């Protein structure tokens, strides 16, 4: 009989998190893809639209936010796909710990691998689009709060579209509407900072999005995973 408490939930979450990081670092080109996409999109705007300082100061924060959003969206399909294909997802679902916490650990790993590098790159790209120091700081802060929300909401879509052969388009259609509020308040806060207004209301709202996403998204994603596996 093996009815003992087994492994603690936190230990199991840590194991899921470290395994995902380990796998990602063995496949570095996949890690670079979203980052490269982010840099390319932001660099193409001054070339394609206008290199004027006035335009870039006006549109810079929006360009960076949209590029970050799309680059997270691009990486979402990989969140569960490989695990689904090689059978590790089945084993994850059959672990005795609550599935939503294991999914949260996986999503956190996804954010560390995609969202966090975007935040770290932002100061450099911010200077490139002529944002002033204060705006760059606020932009980094909103991305720091906002990109985990993108990963968390995205995990629901990735889990739902797992069993489908061409998930990409459907995933975007499902997820983009949910991303729009985050985008609006993210860019809104930078606009407020540029105008010299207070940004605390914007940041509080974004933090509320994050709190909501952390508490609800893992449940939804875990339920969606079970449905996808049941059909698979």
């Amino acid at each position: 009989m093996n009815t003992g408490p087994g492994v603690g939930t936190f230990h199991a979450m840590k194991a899921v998190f470290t395994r995902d990081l380990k796998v990602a670092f063995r496949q570095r080109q996949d890690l670079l893809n979203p980052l490269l996409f982010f840099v390319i999109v932001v660099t193409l705007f001054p070339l394609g639209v206008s290199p004027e300082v006035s335009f870039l100061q006006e549109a810079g924060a929006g360009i960076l936010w949209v590029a970050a959003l799309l680059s997270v969206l691009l990486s979402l399909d990989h969140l569960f796909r490989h695990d689904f294909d090689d059978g590790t997802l089945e084993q994850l679902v059959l672990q005795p710990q609550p599935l939503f916490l294991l999914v949260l650990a996986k999503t956190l790993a996804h954010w560390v691998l995609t969202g966090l590098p975007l935040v770290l790159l932002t100061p450099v790209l911010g200077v490139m689009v002529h944002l002033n120091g204060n705006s760059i700081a606020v932009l980094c802060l909103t991305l720091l709060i906002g990109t985990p929300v993108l990963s968390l909401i995205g995990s629901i879509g990735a889990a739902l579209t797992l069993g489908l052969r061409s998930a990409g388009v459907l995933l975007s259609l499902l997820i983009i509407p949910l991303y729009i509020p985050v985008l609006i308040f993210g860019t809104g806060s930078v606009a407020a900072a540029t105008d010299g207004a207070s940004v605390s209301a914007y940041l509080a709202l974004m933090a509320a999005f994050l709190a909501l996403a952390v508490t609800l998204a893992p449940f939804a994603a875990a339920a969606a995973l079970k449905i996808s596996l049941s059909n698979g």
Partner: protein
Amino acid sequence: MHRPGYGALMSEPLLQAVDLQCERDDRLLFRNLSFSILPGTITRVEGPNGSGKTTLLRILAGLNDAWSGELSWRGRPMQGQREDFLHNMLYLGHRPGIKSLLTPVENLHALMAGRQPVAEGVLRQALKGTGLAGFEDVPCRNLSAGQQRRVALARLLIANEPLWLLDEVFTAIDASGVAAIEALLQQRAAEGGAVVVTTHHNLQLPDLQSIVLGERAAL
């Protein structure tokens, strides 16, 4: 598995199915399927391709919800016993659950991490036991299909769950490997564990129970 209290449970079925029915893609796979899995037994799920062997095993493991009937775990309905069931059940699917970028030791460590604390020495010993000595630290994508499956099978040498659900474990395994697994299963049953296995391989085991699916193939 001679731990205190185990003997008293020997006669009580671990897993019991009553009137199990499953439809898949508008096709009836099986119905009125009833059976009990007792401790100390090996049960083979038989049937031609597409008769629902894998589906049945996934239903038992709780991976598939598209069924009706009753399933109970240690005499209680499965719904309320999910956590206890997951603590005490080991499922190996026909996708082995091995990450090709990780080494066998890392894979095994990740798989065991959610179940029971295991020292690395034990993991290496188990990998040696499945004939992977010398391959412990080679990325799994450099291993053959049979070797990758052996990595997953190494869990059987460490696992202490009373119920094993094994789906097509003999795929890509060589003759001596098959014999070793058969011996392992037999030893497991002697210790009081229960094993449910799907395979097309002709198992050389005494006291083998069968669940036969897909008898309507006579049409």
